[in-house]
């Protein structure tokens, strides 16, 4: 199974939609342990991304993803801008020049995105960040591929792992980002970045499962 630019565009649109639908929720999570702007920032960024999609329909997938990244970098405003921006730009580099992505290409893009976030944020799993939902998702996807499972079902498993990882952030004391100022008081709160990452992975899995 492969996905072409129109599917990838649908995935990005679905991500923009789910962020918009959860704008208040993300901001609410962020008001507990951050500066209450994650939903607003992400929605501003993803709306800017959505408005650029029509002009990118004749480009390759790498160019599309790099443009998504650059747009996020210049429109999100908070730390999520450079983090998600780097993720999409690195995924775009991994998919450079490609008009279709197969299972392995998607893995390469996911791995590049995760590495980009870790490089940029100098963070690792277990610090109550978006990495806590993305890293288990990438691992679940990779494990599924290794056992011969196809693209759609592998993405499904990735999204389930992201969701578990997101839930787990409630049990972590933040050591990175704004929430780290709260120390132990960050316990019990779900991380907004892990949540937005999970929502976007869920949206991606849903689009791919319907083709």
């Amino acid at each position, binding site marked *: 199974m492969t996905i072409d630019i129109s599917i990838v565009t649908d995935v990005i649109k679905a991500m923009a939609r789910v962020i918009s639908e959860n704008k208040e929720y993300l901001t609410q999570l962020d008001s507990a342990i951050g*500066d209450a*702007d994650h939903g607003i*920032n992400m929605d*501003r960024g993803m709306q800017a991304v959505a408005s650029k999609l029509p002009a990118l329909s004749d480009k390759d997938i790498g160019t599309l993803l790099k443009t998504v990244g*650059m747009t996020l*970098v*210049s*429109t*999100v*405003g*908070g*730390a*999520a*801008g*450079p*983090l998600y*921006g*780097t993720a999409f730009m690195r995924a775009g580099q991994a998919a450079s020049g490609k008009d279709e992505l197969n299972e392995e290409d998607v893995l390469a893009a996911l791995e590049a995105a995760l590495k980009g976030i870790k490089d*940029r*944020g100098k963070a690792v799993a277990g610090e109550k960040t978006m990495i806590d939902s993305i890293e288990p998702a990438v691992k679940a996807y990779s494990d599924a591929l290794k056992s011969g499972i196809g693209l759609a079902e592998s993405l499904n498993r990735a999204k389930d792992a992201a969701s578990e990882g997101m839930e787990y952030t409630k049990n972590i004391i933040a050591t990175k*980002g*704004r929430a780290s100022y709260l120390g132990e008081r960050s316990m019990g709160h779900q991380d907004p970045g892990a949540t937005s990452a999970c929502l976007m992975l869920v949206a991606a899995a849903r689009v791919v499962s319907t083709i």
Partner: protein
Amino acid sequence: MVGLAIVSHSSKLAEGLYELTNQLSRGKIKIATAGGMSDGSIGTDAVSIAAAVRKAEDGDGVLIIADLGSAILSSDMAMELLDEEQKGRIVIADAPFVEGGVAAAVEASLGSDLERVKEAAQAAKGLRKL
């Protein structure tokens, strides 16, 4: 001369520090700002930071003075958007915004190199006010 790129979540904060540093360095050095988002909201934007760095560059390097949180992440990201050749002459100061910016501006206006300008900014961390 070493230039300064002032990075803040707020355009007003960035403009304010520009005023101060420009007066103290008596217009001898290039100072550029990247404050807030292009739509006027609070935030930092790596693309506009990269533009500010290019504007402040005179050949002797640029010190980035950033406020807090994502200003550092965005500045880091901005480095990636610059030419390979220019990257080596750009440094982010681990310094307080106002005191560090002022110290850097004065040091740069004396014709010091990038390393000394950075040290002057970072030494402002230990400044006592009382």
